[in-house]
């Protein structure tokens, strides 16, 4: 392996795509390098995360008091619509596309993605629909105010009467997002299926790649439904068709089916790669193999399959007959079994290990604890009679924020800290990382736990004003939200300063096992001089089996190439 032979000079001649600028400017080009695209995705997504988080903090400011007094009701409704939309379509999806883009080729021993140009196009659509959504704040009538689910008929009510209105832009953006995600999914699925290094059979592939594959398969079968639903709604809104408009004989509940047929599995698109991150992080910092690796890997695909048949649980209180509610209650409950398998496997991985509580491990453990809580409240929500009480209350909001903040954002932070040295060649500052973890963990629980009791008491979600009996819990939640806002500061300080002038990290600071850790940090263009030959399963901690073959002829070729 050439990169292990020449150590310091390698650090200077990093990265550049031939002919492309060898500095930060490459991140603003139409680069086809999967590592550049990965970082483009992650940074873009994080900018929108901060933006949508700011919207959430304004909302929590409004909810400090029962009365609607900080912003107008229309503004509040616009805020929660855009908060949800931006967080899903411009934070979680692009962020996970970024992680997958960066890591999958490295982990499977490929030089790039299968379709590098398609990859770049898929990314550059993200800023396009991001700008469309941002611009919608400034059109007459403001942005969409019908929630990120955009149920008709509210989404078809157009008080300005203009053709170009917030809802119109919203639908265009969502359709574009769907196109971008489908492009990304085709690319990632093809890459994983076709471009694994020699010797990397399915059960030698890291779990992160398994989970990304499972997630992207969902994009392939689910997104057409959402995109079709969005286009039909767009027609209803602009040219007066009547797919969903009850006044003209359309069926608004049909839209809900279209919407949730994708948007429930979309939750698994978001959470599955985070399961992958947990599966990568725990073995490294517990110094133990992933417990029951093949089962953990396969259970991702089971979640994909089951995720396709549970969408009606979002509609237990909607226009659905009793038999449908019961059927989907049972299917929803079954999905907790493969998820439970994973949780127990992670606990068993950590158990009896030689644990190091570095920042990535702290975030992964914190994320796992919050995920367990979210999973349990999720089962309660799957129970139809109970859901009839808490459906559309803050209990649901609390539940899914434990998923998307507790598990997904924490898992994302775990991933960023874990692979930061690989991506940048620099090490972050451990103290700031741990401070970030403490603030995030306290902030997230303070923000999202009070939503459960207040939901049980009967506070509906999406309200700009509420009855005084809910004030206590709402004040707590708002405090947590502001703390979460503050918690991003040490993170930004940490990554920006260490990216610029952090200590050099070396190729494998965590002594982790995996192909991505065998190349330099950051990896050279096209990653591998010589495609490695994989000979053993991942996570061989505590053993002495090598991960890749070291045949003499390979050594020879490596020397002279």
């Amino acid at each position, binding site marked *: 392996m050439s990169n292990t032979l020449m150590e310091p000079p390698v650090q200077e001649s990093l990265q550049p795509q031939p002919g492309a600028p060898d500095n930060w400017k490459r991140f603003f080009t139409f680069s086809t390098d999967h590592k550049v695209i990965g970082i483009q995705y992650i940074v873009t997504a994080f900018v929108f995360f901060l933006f949508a988080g700011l919207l959430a903090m304004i909302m929590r400011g409004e909810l400090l008091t029962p009365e609607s007094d900080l912003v107008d*009701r229309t503004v509040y409704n616009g805020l929660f619509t855009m908060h949800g939309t931006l967080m899903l379509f411009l934070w979680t999806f692009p962020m996970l596309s970024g992680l997958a883009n960066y890591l999958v080729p490295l982990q499977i021993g490929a030089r790039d993605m299968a379709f590098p140009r398609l990859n770049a196009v898929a990314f550059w659509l993200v800023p396009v629909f991001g700008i469309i959504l941002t611009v919608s704040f400034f059109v007459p009538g403001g942005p969409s105010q019908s929630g990120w689910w955009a149920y008709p008929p509210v989404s078809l009510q157009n008080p300005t009467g203009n053709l170009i209105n917030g809802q119109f832009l919203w639908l265009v953006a969502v359709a574009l997002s769907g196109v971008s995600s489908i492009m990304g999914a085709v690319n990632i699925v093809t890459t994983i299926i076709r471009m694994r290094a020699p010797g990397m059979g399915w059960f030698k592939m890291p779990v992160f790649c398994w989970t990304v594959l499972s997630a992207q398969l969902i994009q392939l079968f689910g997104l057409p439904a959402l995109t079709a639903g969005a286009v039909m709604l767009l027609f209803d809104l602009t040219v007066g068709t009547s797919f969903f408009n009850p006044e003209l004989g359309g069926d608004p509940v049909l839209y809900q089916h279209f919407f949730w047929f994708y948007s429930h599995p979309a939750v698994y698109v978001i959470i599955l790669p985070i399961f992958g991150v947990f599966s990568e992080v725990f073995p490294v910092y517990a110094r133990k193999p992933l417990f029951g690796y093949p089962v953990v890997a396969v259970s991702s695909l089971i979640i994909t399959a089951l995720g396709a048949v549970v969408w009606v649980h979002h509609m237990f209180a909607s226009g659905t007959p009793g038999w449908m509610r019961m059927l989907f209650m049972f299917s929803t409950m079954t999905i907790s079994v493969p998820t439970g398998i994973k949780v127990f496997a992670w606990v068993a991985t950590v158990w009896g290990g030689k644990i190091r509580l570095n920042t990535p491990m702290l975030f992964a453990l914190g994320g796992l604890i919050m995920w367990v809580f979210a999973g349990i409240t999720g089962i309660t929500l799957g129970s139809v009679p109970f859901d009839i009480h808490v459906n559309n209350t803050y209990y649901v909001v609390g539940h899914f924020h434990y998923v998307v903040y507790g598990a997904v954002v924490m898992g994302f932070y775990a991933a960023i800290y874990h692979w930061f040295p690989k991506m940048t060649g620099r090490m972050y500052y451990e103290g700031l990382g741990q401070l970030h973890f403490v603030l995030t963990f306290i902030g997230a629980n303070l923000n999202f736990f009070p939503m459960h009791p207040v939901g049980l008491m009967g506070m509906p979600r999406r309200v700009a004003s509420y009855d005084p009996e809910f004030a206590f819990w709402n004040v707590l939640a708002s405090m947590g939200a502001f703390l979460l806002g503050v918690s991003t500061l040490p993170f930004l300080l940490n990554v920006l300063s260490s990216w610029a002038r952090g200590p050099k990290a070396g190729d494998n600071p965590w002594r982790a096992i995996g192909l991505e850790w065998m190349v330099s940090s950051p990896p050279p263009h096209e990653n591998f001089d010589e495609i490695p030959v994989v000979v053993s399963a991942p996570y061989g901690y505590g053993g002495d089996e090598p991960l890749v073959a070291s045949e003499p002829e390979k050594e020879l070729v490596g020397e002279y190439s």
Partner: protein
Amino acid sequence: MYIRRWFKKRWIVVIIGLAIADILVSVWLGQQSYRWFPPQASAESMLIDDLFSIMTTIGSLIFFGVTGTLLYSMIFQRAPKYDTSDGPPIEGNLKLEVIWTVVPALVIVGIAFASYQTYDRMAVLGTIGPKAMGMQSANAAPVEAPVAAPAAANDPIEVHARQWAWEFYYPQQQVSSTELHLPIDQRALLRLSSEDVLHGFYVPAFRIKQDIIPGREIDFEFTPIREGRYRVRDSDYSGTYFAANQSFVVVESADDYQDWLTMAAAQSPTSAPNRAYEEFKRSRENPIGLGWDTVEPAAPPVVNYDNSDEEAYE
């Protein structure tokens, strides 16, 4: 030898002790869970609270079991500072994996069956009054009403939702009201309809909720069992003044209920106060527009009876 055996035993004692503590805490939380809800004002609420209590117990058992194990590892299984060795290379344990697949699957099936039975009983409970239109599970089972419904002895109370007001209409007495009145311990039959967008009929004290779909009439029934005045909330997002679209339900004795109907029928319809409409008018008077365009609220409902006392409710 002796010490090793002692250690082994102590280990088991600690595990059993922690397991018992977990069970005790979970059972206690399950009991506490009843206090997290509004008052139990319907027969359905008792069933749902029981179900939630069971789920709280099981959920706590799992949550504290899993997090307790993790915390134990985090505290007691840390690697010493300069220790670079690996942990034991345990790759799996078939028996353990089968257990944690089968046991949760059984628990889940159990919860699903308990939920199924609860849902079934919610529909059967309170047999007073006919089943609406011969539906198997009339409660929360919306179907479009047959065109010519026979005028039964108990015509359902019509619930009209609109942006943004609630109006309750008693067809037999031809009484309209912005406050829903129901006799205690009798099956309440409602027919939900919306004039514009999706709304949701939600009474937290009853633990029941049903989306109202424009273009459909949905029959809905339940049994109030506790006198009092409770909140009716719009639960499905309905646009700008959604949060203000609230009303009340009054559960009273059969006599009081009849008296109220007679009294209300004698009153001539007047325009009721309506929060959405008033806020909208005020925002129109404000020269500086701070919000975006909105759908105009419908004019306040004209009803026989209104009571907009915002304070007195449980």
